[in-house]
Every structure is written in structure tokens, then in C-alpha cells.
């Protein structure tokens, strides 16, 4: 019962019924049209046969008078499968032929002079469809025929016609064909529909079942894809892709929280130790005060680490994607280089800047700025060649290829050994040589995350000697940009991202 109710509620079943109805109506009209046409053709044939006979007989009458006509009519009437003939006197008495009498309606209503050879009841048509009695039949069974009554010169009346039993048979055949075909359409349609509905319903039910288990918490579940590439496959495929993305985001979130929890332990421990030590060791108010200032400094660092970690995590999770817009990387490169130029000068380092104009990229100006600042900061910190009094030589340069914007920050320092290059972009990884200097080991991780967010990459290369950090970003083609004016505006008031 519920199965039938379910079937009735299913879209596929209702569609099936609708199609069934349409097909039945279609079959009905097609067969009806065929039947109507066949009948018309048959009628036309009868009319032309009778017309020919009348012409022939009236010719015979003209040539040989009534006697000759009587002979011919008698002879023809006896032939098997003969037409219907009746020759009558002007008063209506039968002279010869195979018909009992001129049907009453025909005798009473003569055709008009200008009547046409058509079949109808009115006086406009020469032909009538009319019941008649056969003279050979003993019983009074009436048959149906198409007849014409022709008045010969001299008042004799000649009836010529043809039985339309054939037509009745045709109608019978048609009716039967219609019945059978309707039955066939119905049965086949129902069967096919039942099959299709069952199949479709089964797949939808399977999908519902799978989504239910997924909703219950099993995010690893996936919808079955049959491989036929039909609508259901496409739907399943898309839903699976969506689940994949949700899973990724969930995993990303989990990883972020795990990592942050783990990564913050070290600085928190350091902060705690500092406070602890102050409590134990400090004696005078000044010492306590200095210790407190130290802990505040330490917690400020903690905040900075936390912010940097959070940003890296969010970038890696792809959370910032919706805030991206087109901007000029050249403006950012020049701006950040200018920001650090003073630092370089202060430290006796040289900073060379060779930035090409117009480097359109799609992304986040702030983040790219931060990434470049990190790279420059590193280069200025670690870029000095070993040896006392040797100044760092740092250069910022750009390159534009067909599809990429490349920003290079190079120094002439000791560089990074090849085996460590992959490692240093991980969080909190600091090489032995850098441990003595301030820093948290997050700068390159952040730069890498920013590069990835922009669809690019950060590569660390040998500058022979020194390190060359290569930031590659996809170039935005000018014609692909929606409004070039926007990019120009970007430089004027860049703190607001237009989306």
C-alpha cells in the first residue's frame, strides 16, 4: 500500500502517466486520421466508378434505346461482384436490375441541375448514401450503398450504385487496430514506466540513504557513481565534490586548531618560565618591574605569533579567497622596498630595486605586501656575507613572462643549504645559524601561504652566493580584466578592496 502511495508520489510515475496520456491521444488521432482518409479515398473511387457506368449506360441508351439498356443492365447485374443497377419507368416501376426499388428518399428528392458528383443528403449532391434491398435476397435485409439516380431522356430513371460493405469492413479493421494499439501503448508504457521509475527511484533512494549517513556524521561517505554520465551521475559527482570540499575545510580547520595549540605551547611556556623566574629571583621593586615589562614584551610577541599563525592557517584553509581583487604588484613591490630601504641604510646594507611597471595580479594587496616584507626582512637579517663589517647586499627585482609575474628578493649572504630549503618554509623552523637572532620562524611560512593563495609559489634558489627567494604569481591579462580603470584606482586608495 505504502509502495503504491510512494509510487504515486514519485515524480517519475507522474511523468509516466502524463506521457502515457499523450501517447494514447496521439495514437488515437493518428489512426482516426488514417481511417478518415481511407474512407474518403474509397468513396471517391466509388463515385468515379458509378459516374463512368452512368456515362456508359446513358450512351448505350442513346444508341440502342430502352431495350438495349435493359439487356445491358440485366447482363451486368448478374455478374459476380456487380454494381447495383435499377432501371425504372418514369412512374418508378422496376424494369430491370438487382435492386428492389428506388429508395423512397431518392425518388422524392431529385437532385438539382447543377448538382455535383459528391455524396450528401441535400439537393446539391448527385450521390446519396442510402439503404436498399437486393432483389436477389429473399429476406428484407437492407444494405448500405452509395447510389445515383439518373433520369434518362424519355423519363426513364436509372439507378447505379455500389455497396459500401467494404467500407464498413475497413472501419471495423481500423477500430480493432485502434483498440489494440491503445492497449499495447498502455501496457508497454506502464511496464516501461514501472521499470524506469523503479530504477530512478532506486537511485534517488540510494542517494537519500547515503546523504543520511553522511549527515549522521560519516563525512567519508560518497554517493555511488554508475559511470554512465547521466544526470544522476553528474549530480552524484557534484555532491561528491561538495563533500570533498567540506571534508577538506573540516580537515583544514582541525589542522589549524591542532597546529595552533601545538605551536603556541612553546612561547607560552617561555612566558610562564619568565614570570616564574621573576617571582623567584626578583627582590627589589625595580627588578619586579623589569620582569613584568619582560613578560609583557613576551606576551606581545605571543600575540604577534598568534596573529601570524592564524593568518597562515586561514590562508592555507583558503578562507581569504573571496576578498581577492586585481591590483598592481609593482606598486606593492616598490612600496615595500621603499619601506625597508631605510632599514637597509640604517644597517649599512644596500638595497637595489629594479621593479618593472604594471604587473597586474589577482589577489590581496595587503597579503602580498606582508609576504614581500617578510622576504625583505629575512634578506636584510641574514643576507650579509659572513665576516665582520660586511654589509648585506639585497636586491628586489621583477620579471614578467607570458603568464607569470615573478618577484625576486635576492641577497649575497650564506644562503640556505639545498637540503634545508624545503624545510625552512615550515612553521617555526629556524636554521641553527639564525637562532641567535630575533624571529619566530614564521616569515617564510606566511610568504609561502600567500603565494599559494594567489595561485603561485615561493621558490628558494641559490643566488651563488646567497639566497634568491622567487615569488611567482599568475599574471592577469589586461583583456581578461573586467575594468582596467579599477586597477588604476587600486593604487589611489588601496586599503579598500573592491570586489
Amino acid at each position, binding site marked *: 500500500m505504502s509502495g503504491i502511495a510512494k509510487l504515486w508520489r514519485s515524480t517519475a510515475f507522474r511523468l509516466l502517466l502524463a506521457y502515457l496520456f499523450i501517447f494514447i491521444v496521439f495514437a488515437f488521432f493518428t489512426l482516426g486520421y488514417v481511417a478518415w482518409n481511407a474512407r474518403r479515398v474509397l468513396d471517391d473511387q466509388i463515385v468515379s466508378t458509378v459516374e463512368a457506368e452512368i456515362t456508359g449506360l446513358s450512351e448505350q441508351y442513346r444508341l440502342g434505346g430502352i431495350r438495349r439498356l435493359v439487356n445491358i443492365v440485366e447482363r451486368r447485374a448478374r455478374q459476380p461482384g456487380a454494381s447495383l443497377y435499377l432501371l425504372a419507368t418514369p412512374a418508378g416501376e422496376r424494369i430491370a436490375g438487382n435492386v428492389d426499388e428506388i429508395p423512397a428518399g431518392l425518388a422524392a428528392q431529385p437532385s438539382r441541375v447543377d448538382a455535383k458528383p459528391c455524396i450528401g443528403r441535400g439537393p446539391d449532391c448527385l450521390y446519396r448514401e442510402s439503404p436498399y434491398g437486393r432483389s436477389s435476397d429473399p429476406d428484407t435485409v437492407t444494405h448500405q450503398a452509395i447510389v445515383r439516380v439518373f433520369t434518362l431522356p424519355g423519363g426513364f430513371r436509372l439507378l447505379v450504385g455500389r455497396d459500401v460493405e467494404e467500407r464498413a469492413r475497413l472501419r471495423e479493421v481500423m477500430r480493432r487496430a485502434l483498440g489494440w494499439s491503445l492497449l499495447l501503448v498502455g501496457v508497454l508504457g506502464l511496464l516501461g514506466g514501472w521499470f524506469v521509475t523503479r530504477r530512478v527511484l532506486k537511485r534517488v533512494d540510494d542517494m537519500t540513504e547515503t546523504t543520511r549517513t553522511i549527515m549522521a556524521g560519516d563525512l567519508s561517505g560518497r554517493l555511488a557513481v554508475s559511470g554512465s554520465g547521466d544526470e544522476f551521475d553528474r549530480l552524484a559527482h557534484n555532491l561528491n565534490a561538495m563533500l570533498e570540499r567540506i571534508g577538506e575545510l573540516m580537515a583544514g580547520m582541525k589542522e589549524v586548531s591542532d597546529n595552533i595549540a601545538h605551536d603556541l605551547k612553546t612561547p607560552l611556556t617561555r612566558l610562564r618560565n619568565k614570570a616564574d623566574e621573576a617571582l623567584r629571583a626578583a627582590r627589589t*621593586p625595580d627588578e619586579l*618591574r623589569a620582569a*613584568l*615589562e619582560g613578560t*609583557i614584551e613576551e606576551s*606581545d610577541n605571543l*600575540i*604577534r605569533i*598568534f*596573529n*601570524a599563525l*592564524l*593568518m597562515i592557517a*586561514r590562508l592555507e584553509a583558503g*578562507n*581569504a579567497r*573571496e*576578498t581577492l581583487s586585481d591590483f598592481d604588484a609593482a606598486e606593492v613591490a616598490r*612600496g*615595500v622596498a*621603499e*619601506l*625597508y630601504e*631605510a*632599514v637597509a*641604510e*640604517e644597517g649599512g646594507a644596500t638595497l637595489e630595486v629594479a621593479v618593472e611597471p604594471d604587473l597586474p595580479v589577482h589577489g*590581496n594587496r*595587503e*597579503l602580498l*605586501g*606582508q609576504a614581500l*616584507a*617578510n622576504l625583505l*626582512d629575512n634578506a*636584510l*637579517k641574514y643576507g650579509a656575507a659572513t665576516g665582520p663589517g660586511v654589509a648585506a647586499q639585497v636586491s628586489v627585482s621583477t620579471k614578467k613572462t607570458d603568464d607569470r609575474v615573478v618577484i625576486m628578493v635576492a641577497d649575497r649572504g650564506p644562503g640556505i643549504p639545498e637540503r634545508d630549503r624545503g624545510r625552512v618554509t615550515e612553521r617555526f623552523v629556524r636554521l641553527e645559524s639564525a637562532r641567535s637572532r630575533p*624571529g619566530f620562524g614564521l*616569515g617564510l611560512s606566511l610568504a609561502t601561504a600567500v603565494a599559494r593563495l594567489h595561485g603561485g609559489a615561493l621558490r628558494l634558489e641559490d643566488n651563488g652566493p646567497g639566497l634568491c627567494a622567487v615569488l611567482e604569481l599568475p599574471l592577469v591579462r589586461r583583456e581578461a580584466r573586467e575594468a582596467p580603470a579599477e586597477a588604476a584606482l587600486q593604487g589611489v586608495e*588601496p*586599503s*579598500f*578592496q573592491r570586489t
Partner: protein
Amino acid sequence: MLCLRQVGQPSTSGLPSVFVWRYDAAMRILIIEDDREAAAYLVKAFRETGHVADHAADGIDGYAMAREGSYGVLVVDRMLPKLDGLSLIRSLREQGVDTPVLILSALGQVDDRVKGLRAGGDDYLPKPYAFSELLARVEVLARRRAASGSGEPTVYRVADLELDRLSHRVNRNGSEIVLQPREFRLLEYLMKNAGQVVTRTMLLEHVWDYHFDPQTNVIDVHVSRLRSKIDKCFERPLIHTIRGAGYMVRDSGAKA
């Protein structure tokens, strides 16, 4: 010296004294924040720095108080019970309340600042923050509002230092000082907020238009370069370093 109060003993709030300076005119500040502990800390800290601070614990209360009270600055947390911070700001702005608003937010995402400013906020500070940073920003907002009626002057003057914003010329004691464009903007921002503490992040935001953490002392280097041009040959220094907070341009001789 200055208008800066160097507190001898550790202040009662546990706030390090280096964070504490006095502002000439007391401000009325409304803190709309649901975390009672954080709010109590802020109220106390603002009071210790000579301001009047009230506290509202949820969005509806905050909205009512902000509409009725004549506050100089609103400090609004983004996530509030009953009515969230951004909606609150939007409603206030629709009602024609133009009190400057500083948004505090635990969300540090890239677009949060933009969303906050679009909602009608005037400044944005992600949590966690240092109180000195918050205080400096709140004071700048309050001052900007007080000065908004008169319009921005074309020439800034502090003691014998003069900056002409139209001709981009800087004079001190009658002799011209040649500045790089960026140095000019730096001095312009400092002088615009003369007498007020300007933090390093505020300088990075307004002079370089970046909102990130510059890791090293980049801002300090730029300020010290500027200082060498402005203050080097003069007896009275005008650019002062406020320890633990930032910088301030002020006529030190006037109240010494």
C-alpha cells in the same frame, strides 16, 4: 615633562606605567563589550588615563546608551549578545549618530577590517591588542571629531615647525627642510595628531597604507630619519618617543 605622567609606583590596575600618559581633555568613552573581565580592565585603564568610561554588556543596552549619552568615542566589540556590533553601528549611523566608533574584533581575517569600516566604523583593532594601541587610536578618533567642525587646516604648526600641506613645504624656525615624499607624509600625519600618541601600526596604516605587522623596527627607522632632519640642529626636540606606545609630536618647551 610633556603632558606625560610617569607614574612612580606600579599603577593599581597592574598596568605598566610606561603605558600611562595623560590626555589634555578627558573623553567620555562607552565600551560595549560582553566579556565583563575585559570590559572592567578597559574601564579601569581608561579611568586611570584620565578619561570617563562607561560599560554596556550587550548590543541593545549599548545601542540605547550610545544614542542617549554624549560620548566622545564608542569602543564596540564585534560579537555581542542580542545585537551584533556591526548591526549596532549600522543602526546608529542610520539614526544619525556620528560618534566615532572603534571596532574591536577577535576575527583577524583579511576582510574583517573592510567589513567593519563599511558598516560605519571609523577604526578597527583586532584582538588581542595592547591597551596603549587602543588608547592612542581612541584619542585620535576623539580629537578628530572635536576638530572636524573647523575643517582641516592647510598649515600645521607645532612650536617653530611649520608644514604646508598644499605647497608640500616644511619650515623650522624660518629655514626650509627638504623631505622625501614619504617623510613628508609621515610628518604630516604626526603633526595632524600633534599632542597625541601615534603608534607604529597607525603610522604604517596611514602613511604606507598597510595593515600588517612589519616584524622589525622599520617604522622606528623611518621616524629616526625624519627626526634627524627635523630635530637634529635644534635645542627643543619635537618628535618624542613614547615608550611602549609610539611617537608624539609636541612642543616640549611649552610645558616643561
